[in-house]
C-alpha cells in the first residue's frame, strides 16, 4: 500500500501547488491554465462516456450546447452567469440523454458515426436563429463571470475542475462505474444479470455531456466570445486524440493527455504551426509503443529497465 500512499500524497501536493499557482505565474500562463482546466474537464467527461463502450466523436458539440445556452440566456435575458452555467450543463445533459435514446442501442461503430454527425449538426444549428446566436461569425459580448482580472477565473476553474474530477472519479469507482464497464464488455452477460444496457449507456451519456456543457458554459463566460468553429469536427476529434494519447484505460489518462497535448502548441511558441505534427506523432507512438497511453509511461519504463537488467545478467535465460 506504500504506492497508494505515495500516489495520494503526490495528488494532494499537486493540488496544493495548483492553488498556489497564481502567485508565481504571469497572466499569460494563468490564461493557459484556465484553458487546460477546461480541456481536462472535457476529456475526462469524454472518458466517462467511453467506459460504457461508446466512443463519442461529437463531444465538442455538447460543450457548444452548454456554451450557447448559458451565453444566450445571460446575454439576451440578462440572467446571471452563476444561474445560466448550471443550466447550460443541464441543457447539454438533456441533449445527451435525448440522443442516447436512438443512439445508445446502436453498435459501437454506428454510435461513433451517429455522434460524429450529430456533433456537426449541432454546429450548423446556429443558422436557425442568427440574430440570437451570432451565426457563424459568433456570439460576442457575453457577460463575463468576473470582469477582466484573470486570477478569479483561475481559482474558479480550478475548483470546478477538481469537483468534476472528484465526481467522475467517485462514479467510476462505484457500482455505476462498474456497471458502465460491464456493459462495454458483454452485452449478453450484462442483460442476463438484470442490467438495462441501453439505460446505463444513456446514463453515461447524460453524465458525460453534463460536464461537457459546464465546461462550455464556463468557457463562454470566460472568453466572452464563442463561435461554431470552436466546437466542430476537429475539436471533437482532438478530444478523442487527447484521450487516446493520454491513456483511455486509466482515470488519469485524459488528464495527462489533455494537459500535455493541449499545451504542446503553446510550448512550441514560434513553431506553433508544427505542433499538430507532434500531437499526431505522439498518437502514433502511443499505438505502436505505449498502447495504454502516456500515463502508463512511468510504469512501462520501469518494467523495460527491469527487463533490460535481467537480460544483462542472464542473456540466455529463457
Amino acid at each position, binding site marked *: 500500500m506504500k504506492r497508494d500512499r505515495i500516489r495520494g500524497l503526490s495528488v494532494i501536493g499537486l493540488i496544493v501547488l495548483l492553488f498556489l499557482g497564481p502567485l508565481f505565474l504571469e497572466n499569460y500562463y494563468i490564461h493557459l491554465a484556465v484553458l487546460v482546466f477546461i480541456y481536462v474537464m472535457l476529456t475526462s467527461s469524454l472518458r466517462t462516456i467511453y467506459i460504457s463502450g461508446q466512443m463519442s466523436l461529437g463531444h465538442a458539440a455538447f460543450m457548444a450546447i452548454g456554451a450557447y445556452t448559458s451565453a444566450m440566456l445571460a446575454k439576451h435575458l440578462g440572467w446571471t452567469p452563476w444561474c445560466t452555467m448550471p443550466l447550460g450543463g443541464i441543457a447539454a445533459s438533456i441533449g445527451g440523454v435525448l440522443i442516447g435514446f*436512438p*443512439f445508445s442501442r*446502436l*453498435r459501437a*461503430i*454506428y454510435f461513433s*458515426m*451517429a455522434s*460524429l*454527425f*450529430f456533433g*456537426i*449538426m449541432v454546429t*450548423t*444549428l446556429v*443558422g*436557425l436563429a*442568427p440574430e440570437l446566436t451570432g451565426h457563424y461569425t459568433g456570439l460576442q459580448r457575453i457577460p463575463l463571470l468576473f470582469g477582466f482580472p484573470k486570477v478569479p477565473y483561475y481559482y474558479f476553474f480550478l475548483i470546478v475542475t477538481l469537483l468534476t474530477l472528484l465526481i467522475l472519479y467517485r462514479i467510476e469507482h462505484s457500482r455505476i462505474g462498474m456497471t458502465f464497464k460491464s456493459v462495454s464488455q458483454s452485452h449478453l452477460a450484462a442483460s442476463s444479470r438484470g442490467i438495462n444496457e441501453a439505460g446505463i449507456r444513456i446514463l453515461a451519456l447524460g453524465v458525460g455531456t453534463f460536464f461537457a456543457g459546464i465546461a462550455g458554459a464556463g468557457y463562454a463566460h470566460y472568453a466572452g466570445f464563442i463561435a461554431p468553429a470552436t466546437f*466542430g*469536427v*476537429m475539436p471533437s*476529434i482532438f478530444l*478523442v*486524440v487527447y484521450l*487516446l494519447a493520454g491513456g483511455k484505460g486509466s482515470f488519469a489518462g485524459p488528464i495527462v493527455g489533455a494537459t500535455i497535448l493541449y499545451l504542446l502548441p503553446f510550448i512550441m511558441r514560434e513553431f506553433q*504551426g*508544427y505542433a*499538430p*505534427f507532434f*500531437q*499526431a*506523432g505522439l*498518437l*502514433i507512438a*502511443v*499505438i505502436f509503443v505505449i498502447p495504454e497511453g502516456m500515463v502508463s509511461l512511468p510504469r512501462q519504463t520501469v518494467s523495460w529497465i527491469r527487463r533490460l537488467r535481467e537480460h544483462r545478467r542472464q542473456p540466455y535465460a529463457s
Partner: protein
Amino acid sequence: MAAQIAGHLINVLMTSSIYVLVALGFALVFGVMRIMNFAHGAIYMIGGFVCYNFWVPVGLGAWISLALTMLVMGMFGLFIERFCFRPFQRDFEKATVMAIALVIILKTGADLTVGPLGKSMPPLVAGSINAGGVIFGADRLVVLLIACVLLTGLVLIIQKTNVGQAMLAIAHDPDAASLMGVNTNRISALVCATGCGLAGLAGGLVGSVLVLHVSIADVMLVKIIGVVILAGIGSIGGVWAGGLVMGALDALCPYFLSNVVSDPLGLALVVLILVIRPQGFFGHEM
C-alpha cells in the same frame, strides 16, 4: 421551366459525381481493407492543390495536370497503404487511430505550405452552354463527363476483370479470398492507390470549377462518410445511390429551401438512416 430543370439536373449530377468519385475510394478502402480512412478528405484536398501546382506555376495545362495528379496521389495511396495501414490490417481501432493521425499530419502540412488563401484553376473548357435560357459553364458538363467515364471504367474493372473480382472477394471474406490464392496485400495496395488517385483527381476537377481551400478537406470528409452511411457501410455498389441523394440534397436544398436548412437537413438524414436502418440502402449488417 424545362431549362431550369436541366440546369438543376446538371448541378445535381455534377455534385453527385464528385461525391461518388471520392466516396468510392473511401468505400473501397473500407470494404477491402476494413479501414475507415479519415484522411480521405485531406487527400482530396491535397490532390486539388497538387493539381493546381502542376497547372498554374509549372504551367502544364489542364489535362496533363489532371493525369499527373491522379498518378501522384495514386502513388501516395500506395505509400500510405504500405506504411500506415498494412501494419494494422486486422486491428480496426489502431488503424482508425492511425488514420486520424494521418489526417492531422496532412492537414497541418497543407496549412503550413498552402496557407489560408484559396486557389483556383481556370476552367477546363471555356465558354458556357445555353440550355433554353439557363446558362451554365461548359466546364461543369465536362467535369460530369469525366467523372462518369472514370466511374464507368471503375465499375467495368471491378465487374469484368480478375483484379476487380478479387477486390469483391476480399471485401466479402478476406480469409477465404487469401485461401483461394488472392494476394490480399497487392489488392489492398491497388485499392488504396485507386481510391487516393480518384480522390486527388476529384480535387483537381473541383479546383477548376470552384475554389480550393484547406477547409474543403473536412467538408468533403463529412459528405463522403454521409454518402457511405446512406449507401450502407460495406456496400460498394450502393455508393452511387448515396452520392445521388447527397448530391441532390446539396444542389437543390439551398435553392428550394433556405440555405440555413440545407446543412442540418443532410446531416439529419444521415443520422436518421443510422438510427432506423444502420445498414443503409444496400449494406449488409456488420
